[in-house]
């Protein structure tokens, strides 16, 4: 018979396996008809090859599912994650804050019970149900009960009841029969028995090291079917249940992120019989999330394991915060040590968080993150500090040239489509820390939208949005983190919406329609003075005089060991096209000499002024020195800025500038984004043009 050397075991494909068997048969001459399809031998080879392929395919599948990297089935991935002590995140209900006022109350106090229903405004065509999650009691004042800052969460309230029976459920595992449960809202009560209704509250086990036989805890896991399961202790790690106990599990069933953005709510239930109620929303529904995907589990589980529930390295912090059990989802998390700050702050860790569906966290949420997520596992002497992301908004105007002969789309459809393509581009490549915006990627995204687009161009403004304090004057620094373009004839800086200022000459008079602008000059002040000769023997600080065609510049020298080490510009002045520095000895110094310096005029600093149009329609400057603009570093400073009012319901002021580069990068706490709530953030102009 044949030599075994001609058998190969590496093939998984039917035809290749059959070819291998034929090759094997070539080395013998008892059975020769293997090559003829009609032969009985060929039928046998088919069966053998099929069986081999079947087994090989099955084994390949099994092998794939054995590893976290290659597993495809959710149950396998979840099971591998379990070995890494990682529980996949459930859907998270979006939460909103409302104030509820109940009128005509005759009691002395009133309770807004947990699970009171609210109905949201329509979000993408659906009205969502929101619920309170805890009882709130307030005293009634003048027949009115006011519940402030009540948190309501999207979802429906559900309860599952299980009776403990060791014979049918020896592991005390109970499945929550709903795939969309928000596990952060689970409350577990164990009732003594069906007849004895006294109960004990069980909490989610967190630290297994300190767990004892009497601790009333439950454990949470995702089961093989994709539903969450809770299970209980064995009498050693956590207290054990006994037969006849009744486990009551209550939770919210949510639609995940679908209801995020809802901002108007109507109370659906009466409160203790009172139905004369008013609901005002304070913050819109945000922080919701969908059930964790397979890819996300594969990504997060090993990182959670490497953090070992300790916050030491940067990635430990990021992983812990991403996996918080407070029900807050984050689009982006960045962490850095204070020593990287300018100036350095030692002993602190800076954590910058971009929550899903909103711009910043509330003070309460920040405190929760620090106290419940970071502090319990961080190094003792390191203080975590949460900072809000510094948003820089990009406002884009895109001109698109397209050939109508090459498409069936109308110009309006192209306009909508391109606008959508740009906002998708912004969502996928911006919106996070350490990201880059560049013109090539933007125009590629536009070009890819339709083949009829011949060419496109864009102009860009960078915007900072902030809320000026209206009651008193403050200094504001707006950091654009990129070099800014100098206005030559027209101002490169503009603001919206209109502001109101008190008339400085008559404080009771309110000036309407006030805006910011840059002083469009071609010359400017002194940027820096560099020492060309430090001189010697200076006993006192010499006098520095700046001479030139401008006015107002002043500087002082710094003397170290009798020589000029540097000259500091105190006031850049304005209107200089050329300047020199005179260094003269102080009146009590007769021997110091030799010092010399030169002036650098880079036009680095510009001036910001406020203006309005008078009743006669004349453009009038209100304050010719409202602030400064540092072109090189991209900083606008508004000094003693105190508008009377801002024509915007939120009181938000937007200051727009033009950058000199088309590549905009974000840093530690910076996020570049295209504002999804601003209808003017993306302006698309479509122009028809023949391509040839």
């Amino acid at each position, binding site marked *: 018979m044949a030599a075994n050397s001609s058998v190969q075991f590496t093939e998984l494909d*039917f035809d290749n396996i059959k070819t291998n068997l034929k090759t094997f048969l070539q080395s013998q001459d008892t059975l*020769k*008809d293997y090559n*003829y399809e009609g032969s009985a031998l060929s039928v046998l080879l*088919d069966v053998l090859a099929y069986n081999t392929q079947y087994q090989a395919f099955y084994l390949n599948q099994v092998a794939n599912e054995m590893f976290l990297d290659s597993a495809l089935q959710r149950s396998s991935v979840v099971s591998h994650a379990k070995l890494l002590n990682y529980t996949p995140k459930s859907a998270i209900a979006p939460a909103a804050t409302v104030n509820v006022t109940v009128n005509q109350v005759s009691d002395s106090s009133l309770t807004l019970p947990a699970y009171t229903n609210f109905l949201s405004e329509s979000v993408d065509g659906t009205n969502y149900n929101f619920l309170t999650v805890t009882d709130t009691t307030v005293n009634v004042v003048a027949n009115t009960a006011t519940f402030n800052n009540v948190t309501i969460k999207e979802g429906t309230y559900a309860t599952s009841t299980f009776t403990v029976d060791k014979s049918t459920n020896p592991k005390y595992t109970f499945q929550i029969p709903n795939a969309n449960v928000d596990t952060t809202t689970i409350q577990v009560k164990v009732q003594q028995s069906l007849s004895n209704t006294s109960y004990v509250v069980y909490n989610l086990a967190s630290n297994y090291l300190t767990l004892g036989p009497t601790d009333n805890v439950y454990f949470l896991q995702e089961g093989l079917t994709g539903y969450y399961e809770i299970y209980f202790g064995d009498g050693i790690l956590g207290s054990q249940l006994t037969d006849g106990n009744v486990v009551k599990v209550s939770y919210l069933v949510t639609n995940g992120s679908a209801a995020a953005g809802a901002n108007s709510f109507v109370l659906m239930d009466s409160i203790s019989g009172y139905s004369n109620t008013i609901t005002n929303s304070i913050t819109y529904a945000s922080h919701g999330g969908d059930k964790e995907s397979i890819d996300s589990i594969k990504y997060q589980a090993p990182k959670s394991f490497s953090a070992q529930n300790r916050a030491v390295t940067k990635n430990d912090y990021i992983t812990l915060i991403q996996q918080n059990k407070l029900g807050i989802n984050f689009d982006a998390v960045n962490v850095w040590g204070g020593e990287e700050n300018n100036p350095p702050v030692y002993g602190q860790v800076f954590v910058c968080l971009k929550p899903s569906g909103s711009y910043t966290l509330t003070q309460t949420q920040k405190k929760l993150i620090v106290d419940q997520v970071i502090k319990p596992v961080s190094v003792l002497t390191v203080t975590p500090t949460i900072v809000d992301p510094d948003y820089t908004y990009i406002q884009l105007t895109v001109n698109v040239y397209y050939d109508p002969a090459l498409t069936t789309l109308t110009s309006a459809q192209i306009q909508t489509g391109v606008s959508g393509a740009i906002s998708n581009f912004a969502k996928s490549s911006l919106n996070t820390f350490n990201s880059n915006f560049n013109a090539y990627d933007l125009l590629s995204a536009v070009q890819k939208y339709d083949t009829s687009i011949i060419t496109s161009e864009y102009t860009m403004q960078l915007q900072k949005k902030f809320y000026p304090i209206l009651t008193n004057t403050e200094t504001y620094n707006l950091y654009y983190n990129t070099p800014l373009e100098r206005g030559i004839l027209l101002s490169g800086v503009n603001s919206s919406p209109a502001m109101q200022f008190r008339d400085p000459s008559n404080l009771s008079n309110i000036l309407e329609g006030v805006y910011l602008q840059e002083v469009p000059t071609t010359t400017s002040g002194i940027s820096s003075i560099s020492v060309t000769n430090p001189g010697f023997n200076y006993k006192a600080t010499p006098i520095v005089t700046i001479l030139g065609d401008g006015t107002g510049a002043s500087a002082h020298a710094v003397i170290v060991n009798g020589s000029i080490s540097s000259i500091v510009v105190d006031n850049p002045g304005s209107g200089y096209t050329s300047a020199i520095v005179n260094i003269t000895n102080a009146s009590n110094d007769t021997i110091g000499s030799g010092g010399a310096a030169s002036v650098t005029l880079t036009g680095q600093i510009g001036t910001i002024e406020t203006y309005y149009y008078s009743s006669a329609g004349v453009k009038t400057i209100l304050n010719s020195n409202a602030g400064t603009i540092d072109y090189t570093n991209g900083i606008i400073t508004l000094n003693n800025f105190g508008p009377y009012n801002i024509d915007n319901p939120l009181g938000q002021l937007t200051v727009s500038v033009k950058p000199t580069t088309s590549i905009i990068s974000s840093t530690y706490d910076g996020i570049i984004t295209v504002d999804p709530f601003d209808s003017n953030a993306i302006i698309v102009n479509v122009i028809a043009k023949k391509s040839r």
Partner: protein
Amino acid sequence: MANITKVFSDIDLTFTRKPAGGDIALSYDSQAVIRSVRNLIQTNHYERLFNPDLGSSISSLLFENISPLTGAILEREIQNVIENYEPRAKVSSVVATPDYDHNGYNVAITFFIQNLTSPTTISVILQRNR
């Protein structure tokens, strides 16, 4: 005496035992080719794994009305399957004669086997079988 060299050798699908030694019976040369032709004719399309083209549609044709026309289609089917899948047999003629009394066809397949000078003829009665 020199060993007679067998050109073709195949196992027998009846899996009978050789009287001597009890080994499985083999068929050789013309017998092997005739077996192969029989196998091909009796195989329906989609019966062989990963090879749906192999086979003929004879079993469905036998359920058609008996007529010389169906007989002609039958002849064409048989000829095609042998030409496509049995390179050792050069078909010289296939004749299907309707046998109205027995609801079947008398089929005579004549072909030349490589290395043999005289033609081989298989005569079979094809009847539907349910």
